[in-house]
């Protein structure tokens, strides 16, 4: 029963061939971190060989490990089997504040690490989707000392990976050997901290480029004990397939439990 409920989010996000860009936006009242955990767990399902590159600005490894273990996914094991790459960026550039060059170099080095990992995994045999996850964009801005242009440059480079590794390698006519590779990109950002004209592009630019936008908001009517908030999923359809007309908007409520999240349409919870 819980499974079918969890599918409400999956249904709204849809299944894609290859990679795509997912933007999760939350606000102070309603955290969207659980959506990130959901994608993390889904990418590490045992029946696939998908890989996650997780760039953590917000929490240490032990934090995610504890949460995911409750959800039935052991990150330590995945880390050992190289399906989960964890880049701890909690201290990125904090020691040196010498000037502009250093900050950009820090992000450049980080991008280098990501691209290197993507290159290695995509050269391996078999079909897999590589998911790059960032928690969260606002903290990259902090690391870059408030220079939102550097952050946008960094994000732009991450997006180029999607275009580069998106390919379908048909091997002969045998469909079973069809090797589908893709590079997905999932980011978390806080919607309510960008208000001035200088920083607004940091939330709008990713939205222009996203294939799926997921917004976590509190209920319009205020807080309730059995409903923790609502998710609005805007699926633009796969733009890369040039089928842009299939955009869909879904809205449903959620309740975050200890080891699972319930998703349900408004009024259907008993």
């Amino acid at each position, binding site marked *: 029963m819980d499974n079918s409920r969890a599918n409400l989010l999956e249904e709204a996000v849809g299944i894609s061939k290859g990679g795509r860009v997912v933007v999760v936006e939350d606000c102070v009242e309603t955290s969207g971190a659980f959506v990130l955990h959901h994608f993390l767990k889904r990418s590490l399902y045992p029946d696939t060989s998908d890989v996650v590159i997780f760039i953590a600005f917000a929490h240490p490894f032990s934090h995610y490990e504890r949460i995911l273990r409750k959800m039935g996914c052991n990150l330590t094991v995945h880390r050992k089997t190289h399906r989960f790459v964890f880049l701890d960026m909690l201290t990125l550039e904090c020691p040196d504040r010498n000037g502009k060059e250093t900050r950009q170099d820090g992000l*450049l080095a980080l*991008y*280098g*690490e990501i*691209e*290197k990992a993507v*290159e290695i995994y995509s050269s391996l045999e078999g079909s897999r989707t590589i998911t790059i996850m960032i928690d969260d964009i606002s903290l990259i801005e902090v690391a870059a000392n408030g220079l939102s*242009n550097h952050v*946008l*440059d960094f994000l*732009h*480079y991450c997006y*180029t990976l999607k*275009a*580069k590794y*998106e390919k379908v390698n048909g091997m002969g006519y045998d469909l079973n050997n069809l090797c589908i590779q893709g590079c997905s990109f999932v980011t978390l950002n806080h919607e309510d901290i960008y208000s001035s*004209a200088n920083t*607004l*592009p940091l939330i*709008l*630019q990713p*939205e*222009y*480029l996203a294939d799926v936008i997921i*917004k976590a*908001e509190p209920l*319009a009517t205020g807080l309730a004990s059995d409903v923790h908030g*609502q998710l*609005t999923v*805007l699926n*633009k359809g796969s733009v*890369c397939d*040039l*089928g*842009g*007309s299939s*955009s*869909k*908007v879904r*809205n449903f409520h959620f309740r975050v439990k200890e080891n699972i999240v319930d998703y349900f349409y408004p009024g259907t919870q008993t």
Partner: protein
Amino acid sequence: MAETICRALRDGAFEGEHAPALTIKDTIDTPLGSFVFNHILTQLTSNILAGKSQARGVVLVALSRPPSFYTELLKDKGFDVSSSSKWLRVLDCYSDPLGWKNKLMEKGTVRNPYEETSLKTSLCKNLKELDKVLSSIIELGKEIVEEGKGRFAVAIDSVMLVNFSFGSVSEVLRHSSLPSVARILSHLRSHDQVSCIFCLLHVDLHEAKVAATLEYLSTMHADVEPIVQRTNGQRNTSEDLPMVEQSFKRGKFHVRFKRRNGRVRVMREELYVEGSGIKITEVSSEDGITAQSLVPKVQFNLDLSEKERLDRAKVVLPFEHQGTGKLIQIYDGRKSLNESENEEKQASVEKPQTTEDSGRGEIIYFRDSDDEMPDSDEDPDDDLDI
């Protein structure tokens, strides 16, 4: 008028005039600008291939989307990509606008960071040096038209003010200052081998002056606006889901042409996303269709029939003493004693008339006495002891 735009771009620059320039603008509420850009690009391409246009080829400055996207787009529209080198050059400012990949490759961190495409592309590794970008655009253009005569079109897929993008001007602007982007655009317009320019701008990523500057530099601008304007100025919220969904499928398409003599012509159309492309149609009976499509489908009738509408208009509401030739007054319970006495007399005289006129419904109310308080929130039964 989408056709008029395409025609203007096809005809290109007149002798002794700057090349026509088009700015396509959109916002996050209706992010359909890129569809319009693709539409115009493919229209222009087919005109070029048919030999109808002044331009012999297109230089596409790809800033917000990879060259592979355009390969797919052209294939999808039925163009022969393998022979595209005769009429298309792509300046790839998408893959490595700041030279990061180049640096990483030199350091040995990554081996082959660049994407392979079947289009003839030239890589731009430093978008901050706009002069070099300009000269490579012109070089690429000259490759197409060969030395001497002939003109080419320039398409920029997003302009970005502080740092980078000409297919999207948004991207160009992100990497450089507004004056330098403006300089490049006017350079291109005045270049004697440029036939026309068009670029895309995401308005809400920039200050208002950016849009204004680009408007001054262009002869046409096409605005993509939401069908229903948001009144409260808020961004997409969960409360108007049908509207949000609509805004990703259709929008208003406003085009402004600036004539040489300074006259401005404005045209309004509607734009639909249809399959992989867009369709632009005349405005259909304004918002009627929108309103209908936004109202959920229900089994009962929400509208009034003509007879019901007439009947409703005939009903005389209480306190509206109509038809007596007097100014219509609505009793609000605050009139002075004298006035109410006068009225009482008048009303008693008029009373027989109103009873004769029995075909018309009327409600007349007389206040019993001044002891009776005008309508108030007080509970009249609060002294009741049950």
